[in-house]
């Protein structure tokens, strides 16, 4: 593994000061900072290869097409897809999940079938399914969590049944950090005849992804949460599903023959990519994958697990602090939500912000979970491979001062 200093040196954003203090960025589950290699790859693309891909019989057009398709191949290998034709570029995980909801959900799910979600789903893997359920007369059911924030097998067996047409679930909760036992859930769902849509937005930067080993039917994630640019996301889908699905966005590139009244569609993956794609975004995502693979996801995980363990220990020493999630780094990712008694998370964020520390406060786009937890909002810290124990110490020290600032004594 590279040294931490060497890694941090690759992130220009980490050297900045806010309010005259060194930035401590602990909002990585919202979006990560970007290494220089990604910035340079995007810039080089614009300066040396910029063109509309798939359209030009000229030099730059060929360059752009090659870079774009190389990025697709890199993603396919990174997540171990059987074929790069199963990799569709979208603008973010949200669009990827909507693609599945509109194209698969609206065409394959029927009245009285059931769609199963986990109660911890992010709105992006929840609101689209509300739409499908409502439009098709299907029923939305939830997997609820045990007191230790895990998903019990009895809950799985209770909720996923022969009636289940589709299960949509995140691999890692963006609030609790819980990593769900998806391999087992997916195999069980398949036994019951359901397809499974995995929201990998949180897990991809932290765990080795293998869509074939998971046997996921669909798998969605975003570039900007894994050191890549904004504006690029990925939907993986098994070929058999993608072939059978109608297109979603329609327009240039995704067609074969267009007549005045009818259109035939292009082959995979182009059938699902309408309009000019974000080539620079794809190129940046490929560079982010190179960056991650150079370090290796195994080392990333080991390092981040260390941070998580350390932080869980330290946070528990903070008076009046309650953690929402497992207290052990095993089976969870580097995302820790908590509350400080008597302190609204928004005030907590403002107070630690004044020390240069970026954490997040709110419902984290998981309102049903917040309601289930009985917390209108929480504070959340989340780590990337560039965070340090010193930063955790600084955050903990700052958190210890919060109650005083809010007039609760020390």
């Amino acid at each position, binding site marked *: 593994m590279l040294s931490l200093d060497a890694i941090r040196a690759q992130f220009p954003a980490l050297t900045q000061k806010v309010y005259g203090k060194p930035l401590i960025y602990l909002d990585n589950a919202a979006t990560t900072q970007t290494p220089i290699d990604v910035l340079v790859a995007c810039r080089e693309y614009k300066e040396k290869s910029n063109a509309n891909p798939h359209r030009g019989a000229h030099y730059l057009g060929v360059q752009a097409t090659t870079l774009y398709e190389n990025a697709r191949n890199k993603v396919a290998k990174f997540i171990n897809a059987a074929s790069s034709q199963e990799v569709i570029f979208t603008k973010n995980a949200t669009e990827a999940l909507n693609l599945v909801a509109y194209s698969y959900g609206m065409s394959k799910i029927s009245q009285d079938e059931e769609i199963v979600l986990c109660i911890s789903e992010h709105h992006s893997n929840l609101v689209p399914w509300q739409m499908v359920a409502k439009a098709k007369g299907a029923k939305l059911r939830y997997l609820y969590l045990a007191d230790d924030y895990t998903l019990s097998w009895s809950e799985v067996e209770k909720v996923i049944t022969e009636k289940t047409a589709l299960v949509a679930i995140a691999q890692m909760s963006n609030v609790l950090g819980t990593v769900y036992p998806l391999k087992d859930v997916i195999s069980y769902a398949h036994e019951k005849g359901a397809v499974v849509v995995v929201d990998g937005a949180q897990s991809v930067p932290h765990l080795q992804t293998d869509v074939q080993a998971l046997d996921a039917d669909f798998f969605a994630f975003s570039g900007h949460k894994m050191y890549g640019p904004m504006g690029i996301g990925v939907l993986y889908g098994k070929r058999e599903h993608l072939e059978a699905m109608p297109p979603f966005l329609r327009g240039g590139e995704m067609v074969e023959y267009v007549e005045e009244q009818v259109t035939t569609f292009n082959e995979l993956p182009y059938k699902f990519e309408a309009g000019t794609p974000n080539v620079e975004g794809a190129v940046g995502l490929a560079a982010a994958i190179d960056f991650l693979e150079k370090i290796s996801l195994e080392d990333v995980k080991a390092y981040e697990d260390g941070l998580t363990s350390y932080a869980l220990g330290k946070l528990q020493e903070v008076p009046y602090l309650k953690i929402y999630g497992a207290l052990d780094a095993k089976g969870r990712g580097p995302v820790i939500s908590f509350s400080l008694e008597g302190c609204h998370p*928004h005030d907590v964020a403002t*107070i630690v912000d004044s020390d240069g520390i970026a954490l997040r406060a709110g419902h984290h786009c998981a309102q049903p979970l917040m309601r289930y937890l009985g917390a*209108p909002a929480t504070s959340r810290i989340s780590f990337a491979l560039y965070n340090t124990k010193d930063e955790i110490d600084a955050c903990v020290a700052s958190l210890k001062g919060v109650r005083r600032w809010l*007039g609760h004594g020390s």
Partner: protein
Amino acid sequence: MDLSALYTELILEHSQKSEHKRQLKTSTCSERGHNPSCGDDITIELLVEDGKIVDAAFTGSGCAISQASTSMMIDLIKGRSAEEAQTLANIFLGMIKREISSEAELELLEEAIAFQNVSNMPARVKCAVLAWHTLTEAMKEL
């Protein structure tokens, strides 16, 4: 960023225990206001007689800024006419948007002038103005 200019003793007092945080027995109008993204959620009740706000109160939860702002607002408007209350709301909102800076006008806000600093804190503006927008909505029912 100067936290002590934001979390002043006055603001903390109002946020922690406000005499106005209660329910009215009878009210002329009430309005719920919320900032879904941060979870602030308050309901304001007014008892208006002959155009005068004879009683006012609020319930709900939220951050220190939104709670204090609501409490101070009620301090200020109780006993005033609905027109005066609207004028004060306009001044408060104008102060936060930095559209109003005349000392004379701002002084009319009395303690609520404590929120002037929030105009430099885009992330907290919504918290400070919630009550005042909700008041404006409530008074539309009159």
